[in-house]
């Protein structure tokens, strides 16, 4: 199964889905999107099954696919893709996230649904391409291409403040990524200077970089790091996040928090740490420190948040701070744990935002300033929400626990102080997540008096299936987190 044809298959099928979406009638777009993405999820899982479910890392390694297509031969640009234990999971995650995002309901299925669905599939394509890329320029292109659908998502279907937020999002991310491009050029030029050949393939660049003096790598490293730090985001590069998360339509938020942030994680795993080990090693202390600060800072902001979306937005930063802590512990264990936690965060935040969306549909808003007491009216919905809250606070037995625990365990060996500081996030996480759940679900049911409320019923069967799928992943991952760690 795992041949190079499966790689191109995985890449082209979202594009195909995007093209097909233009001939589907508007009324059927949602159905098409949900079934299409479910099918893509199934196909992705099937195609990568050999890697995903292999018992050990070694078996998974046997399925590695490395593909390199000539693209712009004049410059040695190739379309380089690699399917391995890390990228396989992120492929599945991006398909899963797309399924969840498409399962929402809202103005995006009423206003220009074709644009929405096709942009969604395009996003999936760009994400897959970025997760698989081993060529610097291929990666950059896919990384940038992700903006295009996101701009439309926020722009066309976003909330009232959308214009300002999308500009800020775009400009900050673009600033980061274009500096990364300059850094890539620096590396490519080093390669050219050393070998007389142009190449942007990671393997080629790596050979040159390992021989280069550390000082010459400092600025390129900064370029890469900034791009990913903005993407993830890490404090203090998170200024764009809140506005966009809040103003984006819910599917956009789901995509952003669940999977777009993982582009940064993958970038650091695949590029920053392997390319600049010495630089990162030298600045490990500060890096661990800002990871820990991210955890605490965002958690404190989450505590002060007055609506559900903002709170979850900040909690995302906080959790990703843990991921970064794992990655910058600079050990195989840490990076594996980081991957595990990012999988956990992806699934959990997709579930949280999805269910928050369901709450919003039912109560009209996700304001946290007073209790809504919705749990007794919608017990199934709130059971799902509670499970995701538990996953989010990394209760043992959920997917996130393994990640967070192992991250801290690995980070402790690198820096006890940073780890202890970050661990405080565990407490703060409980504080704000419980408040989040309490304000939405608990207390005396309030008569919202909202005439726009469309859905008075609990979760529909289809939504329930999505939630069950996510819950199964969360619990299974809590029991057997090993399958997510094949780095």
């Amino acid at each position, binding site marked *: 199964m795992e041949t190079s044809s499966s790689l191109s298959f995985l890449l082209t099928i979202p594009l195909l889905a995007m093209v097909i979406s233009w001939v589907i009638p508007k009324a059927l777009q949602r159905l098409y999107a949900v079934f299409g993405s479910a099918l893509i999820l199934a196909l992705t899982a099937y195609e990568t099954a050999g890697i995903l479910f292999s018992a050990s890392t070694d078996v998974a390694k046997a399925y590695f696919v490395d593909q390199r297509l000539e*693209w712009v*031969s004049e410059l040695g640009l190739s379309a380089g893709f690699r399917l391995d234990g890390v990228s396989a999971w992120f492929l599945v995650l991006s398909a899963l996230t797309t399924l969840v995002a498409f399962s929402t309901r809202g103005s995006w299925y009423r206003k220009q649904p074709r644009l929405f669905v096709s942009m969604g599939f395009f996003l999936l394509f760009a994400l897959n391409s970025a997760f698989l890329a081993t060529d610097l320029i291929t990666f950059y*292109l896919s990384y940038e291409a992700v903006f295009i659908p996101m701009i439309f998502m926020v722009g066309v279907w976003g909330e009232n403040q*959308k214009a300002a937020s999308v*500009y800020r999002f775009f400009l900050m991310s673009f600033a980061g990524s274009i500096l990364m491009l*300059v850094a890539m050029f620096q590396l490519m030029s080093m390669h050219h200077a050393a070998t007389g050949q142009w190449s942007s393939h990671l393997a080629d660049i790596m050979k040159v970089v390992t021989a280069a003096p550390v000082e010459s790598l400092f600025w390129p490293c900064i370029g890469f790091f900034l791009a990913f730090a903005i993407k993830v985001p890490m404090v203090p590069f998170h200024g764009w996040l809140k506005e966009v998360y809040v103003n984006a339509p819910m599917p956009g938020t789901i995509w952003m928090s669940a999977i777009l942030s993982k582009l940064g994680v993958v970038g650091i795993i695949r590029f920053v740490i392997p390319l600049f080990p010495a630089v990162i090693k030298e600045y490990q202390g500060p890096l661990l420190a800002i990871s820990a600060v991210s955890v605490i800072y965002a958690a404190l902001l989450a505590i002060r948040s007055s609506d559900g979306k903002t709170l979850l937005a900040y909690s995302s930063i906080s959790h990703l701070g843990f991921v970064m802590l794992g990655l910058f512990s600079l050990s195989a264990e840490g990076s594996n744990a980081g991957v595990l936690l990012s999988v956990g965060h992806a699934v959990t935040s997709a579930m949280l935002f999805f269910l928050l969306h369901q709450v919003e549909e039912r109560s009209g808003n996700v304001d946290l300033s007073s209790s809504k007491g919705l749990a007794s009216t919608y017990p199934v919905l709130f059971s799902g929400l509670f499970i995701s809250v538990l996953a989010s606070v990394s209760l043992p037995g959920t997917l996130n626990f393994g990640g967070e625990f192992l991250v801290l365990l690995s980070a402790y060996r690198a820096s006890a102080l940073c780890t202890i500081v970050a661990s405080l996030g565990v407490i703060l996480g409980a504080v704000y997540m419980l408040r989040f759940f309490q304000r939405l679900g608990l207390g005396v049911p309030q008569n919202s008096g909202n005439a726009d409320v469309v859905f008075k019923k609990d979760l529909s069967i289809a939504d329930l299936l999505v939630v069950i799928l996510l819950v199964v992943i969360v619990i299974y991952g809590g029991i057997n987190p090993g399958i997510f760690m094949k780095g």
Partner: protein
Amino acid sequence: MNEVIQTLMPWLILSAGILVTLLVSVIRVESKRPAQFSALFTLVLTGAMAFQTVSMPGEAIFSGAVEVSSLTRILLALFSLVGILFILGGDRYLTKERIHLSDYYHLLLIMILGAGIMVAAKDLVVLFIALEVMSLPIYTLAGFRRNDSRSNEAAIKYFVLGGAVGAVFLLGAAFLFGATGSTQFPAIHAWSRQSISGANLLFAAGHFLVLMAFLFKVAAAPFHFWKPDVYEGAPTPVTGVMSTIVAVASFVTLVRLVHLPALDSTGWESYATALKGTVRALAVISLLVGSLVIITQKNLKRLFAYSSISQSGYLMLGVLASLHPGQGISSVLIYLFGYVFAAVGLFVLLSQSEPRGDTGVELVDLTGLVKKSPLRTALWSVLLFSMAGMPFTFGFFTKYFVFLSSVGTGETPLVVLAALCAVVSAYAYLRPIGLMVMRDADPGAAQWSGGFWSQMVVVASVILVVFLGLMPNAMIQYLKGIPLIH
């Protein structure tokens, strides 16, 4: 003699076409159609002829005053193509503006001939004549909305400044002649090889005055002031021609003039360093002016004017790279082609809008365009994305090469600045898209009507931009095979 005619065939066809068009317009004064067909026919023939002979070896004729090479042929073909596209795409605009003069077409042809000669010139005097042959019709064309005082103003401003700069060029040419005893490029080049003590004051002054004329033409800051005003006042297709044909011809010439002396010869090291410093300063100023002012603009034509000012900045990076030993200039050529492909689409698209009053199309007029015309919104978006250098458009690769070649020569800090400027100006390109798709507010006032051909031109431009964004290889290989300087 026969060979000379053969070599010059495309230019001769163009010249003959100008005469025919002139005659036709005299015969049928009441309609512009005959002149239009004649012009189209001429340009198709010229372009085809030039393109077909591209691979023929270069040849210096008229005792070295003119050199016809692959580059000049491909550029002439490009100019013809752009001319055709603007004749087709701008037709509806001219009708709307009630510009019925047939002279429009032969002036356009003369302008293209001037540009075609300019890129072939190997002699400062020929260059001056070509410059004027190209500029004089443009001054006139800029004032073609005869009853609009803005158009008038644009023409006169352009004329006054252009005339002064022409004189400055000539003074520079005179100085160079005085310093080297020749006006021909190869001779000047040869002189610089012999002058082991480097440049003298006369040469340096002459060189810089000559350069200044073309810095003015490509609107590198601080010689950019004419551009926003002229862009705004001129009829939109003319603005398009200015930003494409004139810009490309001028920039190619600028690069040649920069390399007029042999900078790598002994004794010229400090001269080369100073030249680099100057180009670097020009790049920085152009980038800053272009991308900082562009975000304050509300009128779309002015916006594109500032856009082209910052494009000059990026191109200066390419020129700067070419000043380092061992670096080619192909990045400049690729950039120019990429810019032209997108600009043709943009200006034709812009000319589709019904002007409201005198002010031209403002940003707010784009509001809610997606409701009125989703296709046009998509076309706008792709072209603006290309201007911003987003991936999957050719605009990405144009910046790519310029940046890469500059990084390769150790100009990384400058590239970082350029990259940040790209971010700033990306905001300006994003804003129109935002207005088109985002606002639920009332749609803007402008009416849009293009006509079949105009729409086809835009679609072709978009397809080209996207196709080259995905499969740039052939194009890049082709352009890399063409030497720009000597």
